[in-house]
């Protein structure tokens, strides 16, 4: 027999309509990391991102409870998009408040890394990961949204195009541009040497 955790999103939503509280919890657990990471990559603040996670799922609940939900097969995409939009709203509100910056004009709290403990061994790996996160946070909104929908919501370009109402070629162009922008923050590909020519 299929367990509840193995149920599809549509099956869980159907159970929720039959007042099954647990179904909603499974949906939250299924998508919370993607919703949270999406928000983190925009706001770069753990507490603000957690608030966005709450707001995203409460909006989702509201829409379900009022029987207005229509994205049954695209729940991941729907949630990632809400989270991204809420995060952008947050950044816009924040931009009206003063931020303490260093001489390079960067937020001083990004350097202090408050609340984050990393071991020395993980330092380089973490530093590179942080650089990639920072680079994603600096992408133009539309490029970042396509990136999230493609990789966090696992959508194909045809689906992204239908979901966002943006021409498929434009979606592909935005993604191409995102890959190019992020290229320098990716690990270089390991070179494979011919062992006959370069013996170790």
């Amino acid at each position, binding site marked *: 027999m299929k367990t509840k955790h193995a149920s599809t999103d549509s099956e869980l939503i159907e159970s929720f309509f039959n*007042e099954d*509280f647990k179904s*909603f*919890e499974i949906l*939250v*657990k299924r998508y*919370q*990391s*993607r919703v*949270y*990471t999406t928000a*983190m*990559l925009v706001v770069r603040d753990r507490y603000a*991102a*957690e*608030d966005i*996670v*709450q707001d995203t*799922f*409460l909006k989702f*609940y509201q829409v379900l*409870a009022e029987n207005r939900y229509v994205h049954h097969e695209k729940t991941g995409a729907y949630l990632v998009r809400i989270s991204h939009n809420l995060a952008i709203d947050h950044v816009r509100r924040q931009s009206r408040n003063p931020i303490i910056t260093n001489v390079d004009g960067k937020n001083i709290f990004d350097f202090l890394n408050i609340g984050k403990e990393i071991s020395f061994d993980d330092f380089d790996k973490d530093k590179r*990961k942080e650089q*990639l*996160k920072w680079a*994603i946070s600096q992408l133009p909104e539309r490029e970042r949204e396509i*990136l999230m929908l*493609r*990789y*966090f919501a696992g959508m*194909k*370009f*045809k689906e992204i195009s239908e979901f966002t109402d943006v021409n498929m*070629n434009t979606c*592909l*162009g935005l*993604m*191409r541009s995102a*890959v*190019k922008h*992020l*290229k320098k923050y*990716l*690990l270089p*590909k390991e070179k494979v040497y011919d062992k006959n020519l370069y013996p170790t």
Partner: protein
Amino acid sequence: MTKTFTQHDILKAQSGELPAGEQAFLESILPESIELESFRDSAEQLKSEMENLLCEPGVKPLENIMAFVKKDMEIRRLRV
């Protein structure tokens, strides 16, 4: 008939949206194009690194969400 592949085709191949025949042909000609091969490597790398970026929120947001939902469901039930 010839087919010129672009970076868009690389992205479509990655998401499984390129017809099977074209996909195989693209794979075979990639070593001949430094530009396309390099773009394919970056796209593949980005895909795997994006998966590694996923992180979990603390337990509090989940507790808050579920507490609200439970309470709201009860209120809605009473209203009916």
